[in-house]
């Protein structure tokens, strides 16, 4: 959400519309025959040209009594080169406590620089390195939604499809897993206003997904309804565990397990997941998470769907 237009944000978006050369494209997360969809709670293991707009989450906090929280976020991802990408995102949140005040505002601006380490087509495997920067002071820190300090989170991402299992594995070959693990380091160790230490946190997550498109095109065409053939049922988990500098704070791991499904089209995908807290510190009851995600490389293949610098992929004649 770009509530406060600033030159860097506008300039970054304007750059996307620069006319670019005509080069072959692979873009969003294709690795061989496997397509990894953009997951809702964690990130997929590829750099890409894509736009998540909006992502909407409703949940209840772990407070007693619980407050109701809405989060509406947007994120745009753009490849700088074929293997280097940058994402910019922000979230507007509203937290309404029963009988209490309502806090609302933007969280801190988040940027992610990512480098594609590996795309191994035969093994349907992808690896990515990223640095997530949460820019302190850019959000509503006076209402507790943003923070006055920044955080940096070096993160490793991976994805693995099981299509390289023997044919005898049958329908199991449509499964895939993705995951990420990062270490969040705040730029301050102590919050004077809150009189509390600011912990370093291990943040990690994973997804288990079953690709109906893969089942239809690679394993067996069961001639199911078209809507079913575009679905990827998925379970995501996202967790955070304080790892250091946590004196006086709760040491409890927090997070959610999110079962749901993603419908994948040619130009966009729609995802919907339930949000199930792993413990009371993570929330109360079951919430939901929904996302509309646009494939910019498919929508605008010769302009903003191309990397800003250099070709997307070399144009090669197939070997057979």
């Amino acid at each position, binding site marked *: *959400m*770009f*509530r406060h*237009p600033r030159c860097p944000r506008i300039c970054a*978006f304007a750059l996307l519309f620069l006319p670019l050369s*005509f*080069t*072959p*494209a*692979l*873009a969003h997360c*294709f690795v*061989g*025959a496997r397509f990894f969809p953009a997951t809702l709670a964690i990130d997929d293991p590829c750099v890409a040209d894509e*736009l998540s*707009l909006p992502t909407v989450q409703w949940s209840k906090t772990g407070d007693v009594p619980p407050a109701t929280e809405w989060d509406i976020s*947007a994120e745009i991802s753009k490849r700088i080169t074929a293997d280097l990408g940058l994402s910019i995102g922000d979230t507007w949140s509203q937290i309404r406590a029963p009988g209490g005040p309502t806090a609302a505002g933007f969280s801190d601006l988040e940027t992610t620089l990512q480098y594609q380490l590996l795309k191994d*087509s035969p093994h349907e495997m992808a690896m990515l390195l990223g640095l997530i920067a949460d820019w302190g002071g850019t959000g509503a820190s006076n209402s507790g939604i943003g923070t006055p300090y920044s955080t940096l989170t070096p993160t490793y991402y991976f994805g693995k499809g099981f299509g390289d299992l023997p*044919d005898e594995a049958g329908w199991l070959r449509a499964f895939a897993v993705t995951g990420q693990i990062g270490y969040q380091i705040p730029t301050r160790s102590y919050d004077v206003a809150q009189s509390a230490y600011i912990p370093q946190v291990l943040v990690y997550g994973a997804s288990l997904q079953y690709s109906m*498109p893969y089942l*239809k*095109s*690679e*394993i*067996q*065409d069961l*001639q199911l309804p078209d809507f079913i053939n575009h679905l990827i049922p998925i379970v995501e988990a996202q967790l955070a565990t304080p790892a250091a500098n946590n004196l006086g704070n709760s040491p409890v791991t927090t997070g959610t397990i999110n079962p749901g499904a993603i419908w994948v089209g*040619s*130009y966009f995908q729609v995802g919907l997941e339930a949000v199930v807290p792993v413990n009371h510190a993570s929330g109360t009851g079951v919430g939901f998470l929904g996302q509309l995600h*646009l*494939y910019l*490389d*498919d*929508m*605008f*293949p*010769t302009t903003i769907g191309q990397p800003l610098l250099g070709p*997307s*992929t070399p*144009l*090669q*004649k*197939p070997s*057979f």
Partner: protein
Amino acid sequence: MRTLLIIVSLLFVALGAGAARAHAFLDHAAPLVGSTMAAAPHEVALWFTQNLEPAFSSVEVTDGSGARVDTGKAAISANTMRIGLKTVGAGTYRVRWHALSVDTHTTEGSFTFHVGGQ
């Protein structure tokens, strides 16, 4: 917020105008992916979700030992690939394809079909 709404609206207008094209997914095939046939087919046909660039798209069919059993060059037109088959007996055959859609997105895949009730 208003800026974002305008941007999203422009994106959907672009889609509605038909300016966008996408990756060529395999929509369906004959023989069907993973199917079992009593008699061998004379050709394999693949239909994709996008039109293809013939010069950069291809298909091959191999038997269980990896030997090619297709007749050579595929006929590629619009969103369809077709390739003839030699006379083959019972067994499992693998179809490997590589597609470049007209907007230069590349995709690839493979599947098997069976002849003779295996």
